[in-house]
């Protein structure tokens, strides 16, 4: 799960990384109060979990509390890339001498954490990686040993940071490493880490992504989750332990297993169709789970047909078929349903479903072709 800038920076601060004075506001009035408390020029920053806030006008300077209130009112009324701005961060404005990038993430290929720094801070780091990769210095970290001073120093030297700032930079890097490990982050990023004209290092903007698998160790993060960033159906699916991703097409997919679900989407496309979603109903596939999945899937108005693709392995296909039949009775879908059952007891499963007046298929190719046809109105 992603954390907002203000959340990330609060966490950074807890680990000793200096951040600007500031507070988050939900109303323009609060924004004004905060600006008054700060008593200096402030920056009003939209808190939305999407890139490009700046370009969209979501980050603006305010010279006094009144202007802060006006700007906050405008930003709080915005939608940035379809996401509503519900909060703004009011930070004291910093006088920036130069901007650094500093981030830690998991390097899958190296199977180790990697810490990266660049003197090209303040811009999209992926863009820097594409165009001038030599401007990013990377150091891999032994996960059992942790970040070593000398590694942080190598980064500082690598980005040509003036030597008088090395000690502070090393302290910030250690703070970020602690943030990354103790919060089970998959990304902990300061961009930009600015060197102010007063010669301070300051984390001006921050981003964190927490490993969903590690949330059991961090109950505090559950409350921080911003549900705006996910389609409501995705939030609903998570409640049932289902994995759902909304797509643009019109063929709803329900599959057991993530790999098979992707393969099912792919074959629909191969035969000219368009999947409406990724949905893994997992193992077992009892009636309750199937019903929940069906409801979520049909909540998408684009869906013109549903393809159920289930491989019966340990769970027998006849059991799965019963589950489907019961779920259908509850949900009563109005679009054509194509069902493919394969594996253990598949024939019996298909017979049960045939009685339930569903379209069945034997092979994946047949199922895909029938689903594509149904979505075009040629079936059912």
């Amino acid at each position, binding site marked *: 799960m992603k954390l907002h800038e203000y959340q990330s920076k609060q966490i950074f601060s807890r680990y000793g990384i200096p951040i600007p004075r500031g507070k988050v506001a939900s109303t323009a009035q609060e924004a004004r109060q905060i600006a008054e408390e700060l008593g200096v020029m402030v920056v009003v920053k939209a808190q939305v979990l999407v890139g490009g806030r700046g370009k969209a006008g979501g980050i603006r300077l305010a010279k006094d509390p009144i202007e802060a209130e006006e700007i906050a009112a405008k930003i709080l009324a915005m939608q940035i890339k379809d996401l509503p701005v519900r909060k703004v961060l009011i930070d004291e404005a910093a006088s920036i001498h130069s901007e650094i990038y500093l981030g830690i993430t998991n390097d899958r290929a190296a199977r180790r*954490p990697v810490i990266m720094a660049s003197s090209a801070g303040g811009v999209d780091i992926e863009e820097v990686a594409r165009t001038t990769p030599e401007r990013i210095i990377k150091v891999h970290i032994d996960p059992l040993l942790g970040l070593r001073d000398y590694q942080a120093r190598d980064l500082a030297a690598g980005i040509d940071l003036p030597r008088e700032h090395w000690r502070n930079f090393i302290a910030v890097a250690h703070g970020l490493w602690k943030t990354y490990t103790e919060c089970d982050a998959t990304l902990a990023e300061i961009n930009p880490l600015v060197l102010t004209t007063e010669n301070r290092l300051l984390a001006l903007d921050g981003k964190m992504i927490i490993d*969903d698998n*590690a949330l*059991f160790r961090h109950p505090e993060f559950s409350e921080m989750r911003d549900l705006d960033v996910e389609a409501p159906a995705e939030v609903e699916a998570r409640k049932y332990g289902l994995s759902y991703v909304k*797509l643009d097409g019109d063929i709803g997919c329900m599959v057991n*297993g993530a790999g098979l679900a*992707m393969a099912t989407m*792919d074959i*629909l496309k191969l035969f000219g169709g368009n999947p409406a979603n990724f949905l893994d109903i997992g193992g077992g596939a009892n009636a309750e789970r199937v019903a929940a999945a069906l409801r979520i899937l049909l909540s998408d108005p684009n869906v013109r047909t549903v393809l159920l693709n289930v491989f019966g392995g340990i769970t027998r296909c006849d059991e799965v078929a019963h589950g489907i039949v019961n779920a259908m009775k509850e949900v009563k879908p109005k679009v054509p349903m194509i069902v493919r059952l394969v594996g253990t007891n598949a024939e019996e499963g298909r017979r049960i479903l045939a009685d339930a007046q569903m379209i069945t298929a034997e092979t994946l190719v047949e199922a895909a072709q029938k689903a594509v046809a149904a979505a075009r109105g040629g079936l059912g």
Partner: protein
Amino acid sequence: MSILIDQDTRLLVQGITGNEGLFHTRQMAAYGTNIVAGVTPGKGGEWVLDGKIPVFDSVRLAVEATRANTSVIFVPARFATDAIFEAADAGIPLIVCITEGIPVQDMMCVRHYLDQKKCRLIGPNCPGVLSPGKCKVGIIPGDISIPGHVGIVSRSGTLTYEVLYALKLRHIGVSTCVGIGGDPISGTNFIDVLSMFEEDPHTEQVVLIGEIGGTDEERAAEFIATRMTKPVVAFIAGQTAPPGKRMGHAGAIVEGGSGLAQDKIRALQEAGVKVARHPEEIPDLLPV
């Protein structure tokens, strides 16, 4: 012959008294796997499967008593990391971790630790290993595959079952099927398994089933091009997956322009691998 597991496997089940552990212990035993012990901390002294399998409090005690040489882990995610360390420290040379949901930083530590030991981990978040007709360690259904000479390595679960079943329907048998798991950091990667298949005299051809996320398939392609003599057929799932979204598996995500199915397919094709357009095409692409 087969790789990793066979008739000499002496299996230990960690988390044997849990629902899932017990169910699959029964399935594995029914398949003929030689299950010598189970471990559930706090339940040492009990017996499962009608008194046939002793339960121990710790892996060390189980190994001392039964000379188990392989462990399969069914314990919940929050205890699974410790279970892996426990098995490794007890000297078990092959650990198969079925558990899904282990934090990625835990896995980086595990992998780093195991790399310094003579210990192989398969998974986590994987269906396990099946050597048809000989031994089953994990949850791959036993009846959907027959013994033969095709080696299978896959990041997926049910998609792999599909392929096994499709091969069976065409009377094509399998030497060993290895599910390496869908997490970003796995104990074993494609290359590890490909090199085992390359060396296994009874494996004649290999099916590789990949998916979006990471660059493991690209590195496998390079290995195939430079080091493999046996033909490889592949399928990559997730061509229609949008970037930045996790597709079920923790590791199935396109990030920062990396991990795209198209790149993997291209790399494999350039390495001389036939890439199936859909799973049912795989049997057709295997050389007769």
